[in-house]
């Protein structure tokens, strides 16, 4: 057993960045992310981590700094939440389109208006179309481990990675965390090689305007149009699935912990109804499942760890044996339903998986989600399914909806 300490999610995140030997950190404070930036400032000013720390004047600039620093070959890190993530949205698209291996923590917090400082996942889910890999952590151990894995994944597929974890619920909650050995981490992370070197030795223009059509260079060779470049981003995300899984396995081999690759399962042998979620709501669901099992209800949890690239084949394989699904999510695509629920349904299209799916919107703006509430929701869903209600409108859990 290595060095185990109790620490908050934010401490785990700062430690993960430090162990990964990040070279440039640019961050702006926002609740509940702030202590990550403070701890990294402490590490850098105290001499424990040799890195440039740019105390930027906004989140938009934070990611802009990361983008250009990564472009010249530095390993970079930033973190934010909610409004900060939204403010840098333009840059989030830019980073993915630039194919830069930036790793960013999103400490999940609900978005305004009206204001909330408390947890939900609307902020990061709203970024799902940008081309970032998204990993949702269920406990603080997974935070530190996923950050390390993220650099390895990002630097081999050249796609940025967002490590998401729930604000306050994890960021400010202490859990035991085994700190990976620093040397083992250094061995696990080979040095970063940028895909394009921006340097006076070979001048070129990075991220210029592209025409809609392909265009010949001075040698007469046809080069990519905008659409080809964007196709390459999608292709990289498709190919990242294998890298995510192999990295997860290799990490397990070196450090002894396997967080499940694309998704993880709890008590899904001989299961009828499955609770699905991302992050801490999924880990809370495991407690709900224990309650339900003690009553004789064959419940289990499938936790989606990687939301992007969406684990379509893993979802199809995992849900084949299931009879009913309750998707619990801390966010909603307004005007439709929970994004995770939609995407799971879409994953079944084209297969013969047809089963009742109930979508629960829960925990918005930090409303507490208790295991017994999840268990009660499952019992109600089972009753409803028995009467033939396979796909009700999204149910707002523990919310006054009169």
């Amino acid at each position: 057993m290595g060095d185990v300490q109790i620490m908050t999610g934010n401490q785990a995140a700062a430690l993960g960045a430090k162990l990964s030997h990040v070279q440039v950190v640019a961050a702006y404070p926002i609740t509940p992310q702030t202590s990550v930036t403070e701890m990294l400032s402490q590490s850098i000013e105290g001499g424990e981590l040799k890195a440039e720390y740019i105390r930027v004047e906004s989140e938009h600039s934070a990611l802009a700094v990361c983008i250009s620093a990564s472009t010249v070959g530095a390993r970079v890190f930033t973190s934010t939440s909610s409004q900060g993530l939204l403010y840098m949205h333009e840059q989030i698209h830019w980073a993915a389109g630039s194919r830069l291996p930036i790793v960013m923590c999103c400490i999940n917090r609900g978005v305004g208006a009206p204001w909330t400082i408390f947890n939900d996942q609307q902020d990061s889910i709203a970024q799902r179309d940008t081309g970032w890999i998204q990993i949702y952590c269920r406990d603080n151990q997974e935070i530190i481990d996923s950050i390390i894995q993220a650099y390895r994944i990002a630097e081999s597929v050249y796609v940025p990675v967002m490590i998401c974890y729930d604000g306050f619920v994890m960021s400010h909650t202490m859990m035991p965390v085994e700190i990976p050995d620093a040397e083992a981490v250094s061995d696990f992370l080979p040095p970063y090689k940028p895909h394009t070197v921006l340097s006076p030795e070979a001048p070129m223009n990075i991220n210029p305007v592209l025409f809609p059509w392909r265009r010949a260079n001075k040698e007469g060779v046809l080069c990519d149009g905008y659409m080809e470049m964007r196709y390459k981003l999608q292709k990289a995300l498709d190919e990242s699935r294998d890298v995510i899984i192999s990295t997860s396995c290799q990490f397990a081999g070196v450090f002894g912990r396997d967080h499940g690759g694309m998704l993880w399962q709890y008590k899904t042998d001989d299961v009828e109804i499955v609770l699905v979620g991302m992050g801490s709501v999924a880990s809370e669901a495991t407690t709900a499942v224990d309650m339900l099992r003690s009553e004789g209800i064959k419940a289990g949890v499938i936790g989606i760890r990687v939301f992007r690239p969406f684990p379509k084949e893993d979802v199809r394989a995992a849900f084949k044996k299931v009879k009913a699904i309750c998707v619990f999510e801390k966010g909603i695509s307004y005007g439709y339903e929970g994004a995770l629920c939609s995407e799971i349904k879409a994953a079944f299209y084209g297969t013969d998986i047809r089963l009742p799916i109930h979508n629960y919107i829960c925990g918005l703006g930090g409303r507490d989600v208790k295991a017994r509430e999840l268990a009660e929701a499952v019992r109600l869903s089972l009753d409803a399914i028995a009467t033939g209600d396979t796909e009700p409108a999204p149910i707002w859990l523990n919310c006054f909806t009169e």
Partner: protein
Amino acid sequence: MPENLFNVNIEEYMLPGQRACQGCGLSLAYRYVLKALRENTIVTFPACCLTVLHGLYPTTSVAIPALNCTFASTAASASGLVAGLNALNRTDITVVAIAGDGGTFDMGIQALSGAAERGTDFIYICYDNEGYMNTGTQRSSATPIGALTSTTPVLTKQQPKKDMLRIMEAHDLPYIATTSSAYPIDLYDKFVKAKRIKGPRYMQIAVPCPPGWGYAPKDTVRIGRLAVETGIVALFEIEDGKFHFTGRSKTLAEKGNKLPVINYVERQGRFRKMSIEQLRQLQRWVDTRWNEYLERAEG
């Protein structure tokens, strides 16, 4: 004059056949900016006329490493270049941010103020053509009073030009300089000097724009000169807070013979709807600032 001319770096980093307009003031100025800064430079710039000048993939017209960025983030992009290069111990490269007045006075002001306040070791260049010219001459806070633009098409710009130079002075920078496309040697000398200074350096270039300002392309240098002759543009340097005129402005300050602004505005289509009151306001604005500069130059 020819001697100064012949001391200029003869290398051309801006290659022929680039996409800027006929008679573009930016094109003229940029030629000398690059000559002064030389090969060990990385430039970063947002979507603007310069993006178009640098060209469309897969070819670029500029033989200097360049990184495009989003419109608001030019100075932040430069901050990241500086940080990344420092982290990699590549301290031999000059990092240059360059944006138009729209990307500096307006959307880019936050990032610029941040980078300046942090003492970032880079050169920030604002090429001021007094409007969002790349997108078709929309009004910016740098547009002078009385000018027609596509977003002030009937009433003309109602507010005087934002004094960005004073805003940058408030950041206690080691070096601030104004330059003009019409005075390339003065510009070149200031950029050669700026390259050797450490810390945030702010350079503003007064750039005439034929389609945006409404004059024939052949008159770019003439219009640029008139801006200086009338005091609308003052050529100066502020080094560690100490102000002094340079070049033609120095001569004008000594001889006291700057021309009335009417000589400048009457040659440009954008001022054809300017009212008498606005003209008076512009003259007052020029005179007030000029007198302040004269006092500072003497002090």
